[in-house]
């Protein structure tokens, strides 16, 4: 793929320093690469491997008002080109997070987005309020793939009505950029994205893990103590790209794409399809430096393909 071909396409070839920064709901990210919640701890864990200043944004492990024990082990199992997890939302709670983890993160000039959840609408609202009052939280990501204790443990994020309610209430409780993280376990993800948009979300992120299960045929028992878990990793990438495509066509708010992004080429699939930013999850486990290599790879692609601004490729899919 030489200069010639690029020029023929009418793009500026040979751009040396393409612009990588994108805007998500008022947050300016220096590049479109964030971490996926639950795969990057509270940031600290990866700081030996990654200069956190280089990231587009840091999204921390999902937090709730009260700490959670999480599920018994085994919590993870590998599957073909993927993994299942059933961590059970173990977390230290928002109070401890603000006291013990946030000061570390404030050292960096990278926006911190806090993923949060609750068992009830009220817990969501409380969490959003408390996080919004903390110094150093730049955005919120609502994880709605949790069962709703009040509505008989139906999952918030698979019922448009209860999803809408909880988003509306959280919206009133915070002025921070509000990202709603969509569950892929639905018939029509574009409908869910539209509901999120109408209910006040500034952005949607997708996909969360796909509910799945593995069986130990010797013991004739589920491998995970929790029976089912969430599938992530390269296996789900084609499903995630399809959902980003459907959602991108359905809403005006920015879309954050994730699901199986291992390399810059994977990230580019999402960006071209319409994601304004991407999040890297399982890849961090495989290669702790994955985020940085992906940022570099995206930049290289822009140079090679003659784009001076990342925004020129976002949603550039020709169909």
């Amino acid at each position, binding site marked *: 793929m030489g200069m010639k071909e690029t020029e023929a396409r009418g793009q500026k070839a040979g751009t040396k320093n393409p612009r990588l920064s994108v805007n998500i709901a008022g947050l300016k990210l220096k590049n479109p690469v964030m971490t996926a919640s639950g795969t990057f701890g509270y940031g600290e864990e990866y700081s030996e491997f990654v200069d956190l200043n280089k990231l587009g944004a840091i999204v921390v492990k999902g937090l709730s008002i009260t*700490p959670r024990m999480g599920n018994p082990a085994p*919590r993870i199992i590998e599957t073909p080109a993927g993994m299942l997890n059933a*961590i059970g939302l173990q977390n230290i709670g928002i109070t401890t997070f603000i006291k013990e983890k946030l000061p570390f993160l404030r050292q960096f000039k990278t926006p911190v987005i806090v993923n949060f959840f609750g068992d009830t609408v009220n817990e969501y609202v409380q969490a959003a309020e408390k996080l919004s009052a903390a110094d150093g939280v730049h955005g919120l990501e609502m994880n709605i793939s949790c069962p709703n204790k009040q509505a008989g443990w139906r999952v918030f994020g698979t019922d448009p009505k209860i999803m809408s309610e909880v988003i509306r209430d959280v919206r009133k409780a915070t002025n921070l950029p509000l990202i709603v993280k969509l569950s892929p376990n639905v018939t029509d993800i574009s409908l869910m994205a539209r509901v999120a948009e109408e209910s006040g979300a500034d952005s949607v992120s997708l996909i969360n893990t796909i509910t799945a299960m593995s069986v130990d045929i010797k013991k004739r028992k589920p491998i995970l103590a929790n029976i089912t878990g969430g599938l992530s990793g390269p296996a789900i990438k084609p499903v995630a790209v399809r959902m980003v495509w459907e959602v991108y066509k359905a809403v005006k708010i920015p879309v954050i794409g994730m699901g199986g992004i291992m390399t810059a080429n994977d990230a580019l699939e999402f960006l071209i399809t319409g994601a304004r930013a991407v999040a890297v999850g399982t890849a961090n486990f495989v290669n702790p430096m994955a985020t940085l290599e992906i940022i570099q790879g995206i930049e290289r692609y822009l140079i090679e393909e003659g784009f001076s601004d990342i925004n020129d490729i976002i949603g550039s899919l020709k169909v």
Partner: protein
Amino acid sequence: MIQAGDTYDPLLKRPFSIFRQEDNTLQFLYRIRGKGTLCLSNVKKGDTLDLIGPLGNGYPIPKGDFVAVAGGIGIASLYALIEQHKNRAHAFYGARNKDELLMLNEVSKFSKKICITTDDGSAGKQGLITTPLKVFLRNNHLPVYTCGSMPMLKTIFNIIKDTELKCYASLEENMACGIGACLGCVVKVRSEKLEVRSKKSGVRSQDKKNLTVYKRICKEGPVFDLKDIAWE
């Protein structure tokens, strides 16, 4: 944590103990178990491996004589301890059969005493290694260092639980990150510290005498005091 293949199947790195350091090499001793270790066995001389480590804690340094109890490939974790503290280990080494007693010569050489069992009797006594261990510990009050299957560890725990004996065990659990980020590799341990916090924050379903918390094997472990573990 070592990357086993070049493609996405197998996907995750696999955890291994550092078996031995010699000159400028790091050595690993492993048993082929599933596709990760199978891929690893196809690595050729000169190939590059992706690896992060060392991770987590290690065994506390033994002050005098000690007991080393290895179940099968558990020897990989204990070997360095035995070699570095020559003639101080009372080694108990159990395996399925003769062929799975790896490094037997070296282990014998560096240990003060060695006791062997196999499931099929093809070497040493037939039976479980915990049988002679139990007898030995009755008369020898030495700290125990161990690595092996959960049933073996549970038996050792039962042997020592009402004694003053210390037992340090290297635990295994499925791992993804190896650095404490994914919370995948936990073991339930008793916790007194949690008691205070839990009252305020409402962590439920824990009676006060028996408070437990999940610790990450990759980060707070893999070596735990067997008496800290919250056995079911």
